[in-house]
């Protein structure tokens, strides 16, 4: 032991232990002390939470030592989102708490917008400033000119605030920049959206078809778990991807498709299933509408036709169709998640929906199950005022089938045009780094410059915080209550998030911010509770639980009332569509003036010396949100540019060499990116993980590390059906004379 004293090397440990232990110990209320994990030290306590690192929101336990140090986070055994196992991001959630670059105090801008120069302010100052501006904007232009962009749990509270003011402009980029097209497609086919978590019965499937979806790298926890279960049970996986993804490496068939031609493959599969008579005849006859039109429509879409477009061999198209048909109905043609690619995405997702219908997988074991949910009644408040207009009024006659608010639409509706008499004048932004989230950055910045007020609520300095007028530091999910997670799955579940300790610094929870702002805006009657515990307890008591019960349980499973996880063959099912049947021929789309059955259109290809920019996810990061997390940057601290060896040879690119990228519009990446020469990518495209290339120097670990794909996405292919922003029509070339400054 003497040697220890002699060496006296300062204890480094986890990044922020010193910070944490220097604070006083927060003693949680007495009930928590009793709940210790078996085998943990007696003085360790655990408190329930659900994860905020991604939208999967897995429930877990936060383990805190007797010194008040958050030691680790583990999954909750009863939670169907995680089954007791968090993903690397959830496990690494402690890093979000300890990140010393966190926003620590309210900030008010002192120099021009975008310079990222602020003064520290008190909460009172910040709230008074915001409230005064909001009142002024509401008086001058109407409350409808206030918009909320959110991709965090805090959005529930700020959304309530906006509605109480009289605005319905509440949107998340997760719709028009991500999953929107699939929701519209499945709604118009089955009368039901997919939603989240996806009701895919992967654990019992015999064939899983992934189209550009890279489960495993895309760490949607329970889906990845079930994919693993399916592998164990010998299910066949078919992966369609120009990149040899991790999922492709686990697949029986990998179809290295030419990018942007997926719809041709899908139509060809439909052709084969129908003309080889491999579809589920009974299901199609009894439950679908428009089969003859579909059959006629796909007559010429033979595998030979598709081969010329997709480069996939005709016999492979037939074999894979056969594989699906053999597994039917225990087959899933997966709807994917980020599907805003080429602007005809709703139609491509319609083809996916039609395939599932032909295979009879909707409502069947091993296909798609019927999810059960439990909603919580809202805490009583007066009726919301009726907004006189919404973002939709900025786009008369357009995007009529959009079932949700378009974040990109609200952004566009902020830029003045002669045709419109009113623009959005104020943005509240919570938990979404719009600069990196929305495509076409120039457009986003132009919108921001037209604002009278932008408030950003976040835990971390991000690119978007630099453009704010007021920045409000939100405490992390480990330090706060939020609304109860009420989610749909095979069984409905409720999950509680509660603080594991008091917030660090002068950060605060969103519920408190919204209530304080509501008070200053004269909306107290909408926030008629002392604190969130009172509201949560009231809500939980309406469904036979209570806050104290949930503090002990963390997760409450609610057994299904009826045995209706799948359709029984004898069931007559009325679908929520115009015909009451599954619409192979979509009357919704026909009525709105769109193709009722998907039509393949060719998309532009890269010009000479350019390569299609593809992007995706890494299992240890979520968007830009985790790019500075000490535990997760330890696993991956920059993205790399995947380049096929043939391309590398042409350009004389070496592994680990840094290059900059220039896109078709002449936009050059701010930072250089490290080349990864790999056989795992097609010669006509390059690939990088999204979420890197941060330009905010306040992110000490993330700043300047890797390149931002978003920055290079300047060509947006709009989906005319629902306003999705197709982002995969961008092409890049290499700028190789970059010094290795970032090594």
């Amino acid at each position, binding site marked *: 032991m003497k040697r220890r004293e002699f060496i006296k090397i300062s204890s480094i440990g986890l990044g922020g232990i010193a910070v944490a232990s220097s604070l006083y110990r927060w003693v949680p209320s007495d009930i928590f002390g009793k709940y210790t994990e078996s085998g943990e030290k007696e003085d360790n306590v655990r408190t329930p939470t659900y994860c905020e690192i991604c939208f999967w929101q897995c429930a877990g336990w936060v383990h805190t030592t007797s010194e008040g140090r958050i030691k680790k986070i*583990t999954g909750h055994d009863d939670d169907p989102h995680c089954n007791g196992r968090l993903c690397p991001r959830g496990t690494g959630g402690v890093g979000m708490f300890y990140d010393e670059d966190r926003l620590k105090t309210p900030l008010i801008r002192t120099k021009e917008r975008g310079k990222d120069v602020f003064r520290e302010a008190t909460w009172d100052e910040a709230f008074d400033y915001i409230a005064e501006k909001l009142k002024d904007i509401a008086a001058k232009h109407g409350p409808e000119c206030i918009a909320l962009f959110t991709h965090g749990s805090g959005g529930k509270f700020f959304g309530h605030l906006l509605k109480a003011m009289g605005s319905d402009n509440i949107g998340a980029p997760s719709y028009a920049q991500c999953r929107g097209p699939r929701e519209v497609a499945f709604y118009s086919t089955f009368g039901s959206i997919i939603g989240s978590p996806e009701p895919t019965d992967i654990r019992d499937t015999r064939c899983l078809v992934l189209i550009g979806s890279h489960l495993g790298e895309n760490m949607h926890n329970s889906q990845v778990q079930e994919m693993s279960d399916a*592998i164990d049970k010998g299910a066949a996986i078919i992966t369609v991807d120009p990149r040899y993804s991790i999922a492709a490496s686990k697949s029986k068939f990998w179809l290295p498709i030419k990018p942007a031609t997926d719809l041709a493959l899908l139509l060809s599969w439909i052709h084969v299933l129908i003309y080889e008579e491999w579809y589920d005849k009974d299901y199609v006859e009894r439950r679908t509408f428009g089969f003859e039109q579909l059959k006629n429509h796909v007559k010429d879409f033979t595998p030979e036709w598709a081969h010329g477009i997709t480069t996939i061999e005709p016999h492979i198209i037939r074999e894979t169709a056969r594989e699906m048909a053999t597994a039917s109905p225990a087959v899933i043609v997966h709807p994917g998640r980020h599907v805003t690619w080429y602007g005809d995405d709703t139609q491509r997702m319609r083809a996916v929906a039609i395939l599932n219908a032909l295979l009879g997988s909707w409502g069947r074991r091993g296909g798609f199950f019927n999810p059960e949910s439990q909603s919580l009644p809202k805490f009583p408040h007066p009726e919301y005022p009726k907004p006189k207009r919404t973002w939709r009024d900025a786009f008369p006659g357009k995007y009529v089938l959009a079932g949700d608010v378009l974040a990109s639409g609200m952004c566009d509706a902020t830029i003045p045009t002669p045709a419109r008499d009113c623009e959005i004048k104020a943005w509240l932004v919570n938990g979404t780094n719009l600069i990196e989230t929305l495509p076409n950055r120039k457009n986003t910045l132009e919108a921001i410059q037209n604002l009278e007020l932008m408030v950003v609520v976040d835990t971390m300095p991000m690119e978007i915080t630099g453009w704010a007028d007021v920045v409000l530091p939100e405490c992390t999910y480990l330090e706060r209550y939020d609304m109860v997670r009420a989610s749909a799955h095979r069984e409905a579940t409720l999950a509680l998030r509660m603080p594991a300790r008091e917030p660090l610094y002068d950060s605060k929870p969103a519920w408190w911010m919204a209530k304080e702002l509501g008070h200053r805006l004269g909306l107290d009657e909408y926030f008629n509770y002392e604190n969130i515990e009172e509201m949560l307890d009231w809500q939980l008591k309406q469904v036979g639980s209570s806050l104290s019960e949930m503090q002990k349980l963390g997760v409450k499973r609610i057994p299904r009332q009826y045995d209706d996880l799948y359709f029984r063959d004898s069931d007559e099912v009325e679908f929520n569509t115009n015909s009451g049947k599954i619409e192979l021929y979509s009357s919704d789309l026909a009525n709105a003036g769109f193709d009722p059955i998907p039509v393949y259109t060719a998309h532009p290809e890269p010009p000479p010396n350019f390569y299609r920019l593809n992007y995706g996810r890494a299992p240890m990061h979520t968007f830009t949100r985790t790019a500075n997390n000490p535990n997760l940057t330890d696993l991956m601290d920059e993205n790399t540019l995947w380049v096929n060896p043939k391309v590398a040879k042409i350009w004389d690119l070496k592994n680990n060499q840094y290059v900059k990228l220039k896109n078709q519009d002449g936009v050059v990446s701010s930072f250089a990116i490290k080349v990864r020469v790999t056989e795992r990518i*097609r010669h006509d495209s390059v690939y990088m993980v999204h979420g890197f290339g941060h330009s905010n120097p306040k992110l000490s670990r993330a700043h300047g590390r890797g390149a931002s794909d978003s920055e290079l996405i300047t060509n947006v292919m709009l989906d005319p059906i629902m306003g999705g922003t197709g982002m995969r029509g961008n092409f890049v070339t290499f700028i190789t004379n970059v010094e290795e400054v970032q090594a």
Partner: protein
Amino acid sequence: MRYAMAIDTKKCVGCSDCVVACQTEHNVPIGYCRDWVVEVTDGTYPVLELENRSERCNHCENSPCVRCCPTGASHYSEGGIVLVTKHECIGCGACIQSCPYDARYTHPEGYVDKCTFCNDRVGKGMQPACVAVCPTKCMYFGDLDNPNSEISKILALRKHKTLIPEAGTQPHVYFLI
């Protein structure tokens, strides 16, 4: 009693959850790790193969690290788990040099550190942290001497390999292939 681990490379997606779970469980300093993930690609586009595997100390039956340790800090513990007694370690690094798997590192506090098979957790009847967290359930841990243990059964059933068998170390981490 003979503890061993098996990792199913057919299921591992290389997410590195095992690495983070180990880091938080054992306060492994940022920048260091006791386990790590390897990805090996073979072939030419589009005929490719890829193997993901989570690696760590192999807790070898014939451990060069134990043999070369001058102070006896590196030793075999119950069930064949190879451990380092912190206060006996002088940080000479001989074990680090001798390990064919590069499984050890010098902790900033001066001693050599590595995977312990979570002997503290295992002693309480729990699974190692990496095994318990793995979203794909691709990791198996247990007693090779018990023919009814999950690991004995999976090794009997599935084709498997060890790393660098030619080093003669007799590793006790197996990879299902």
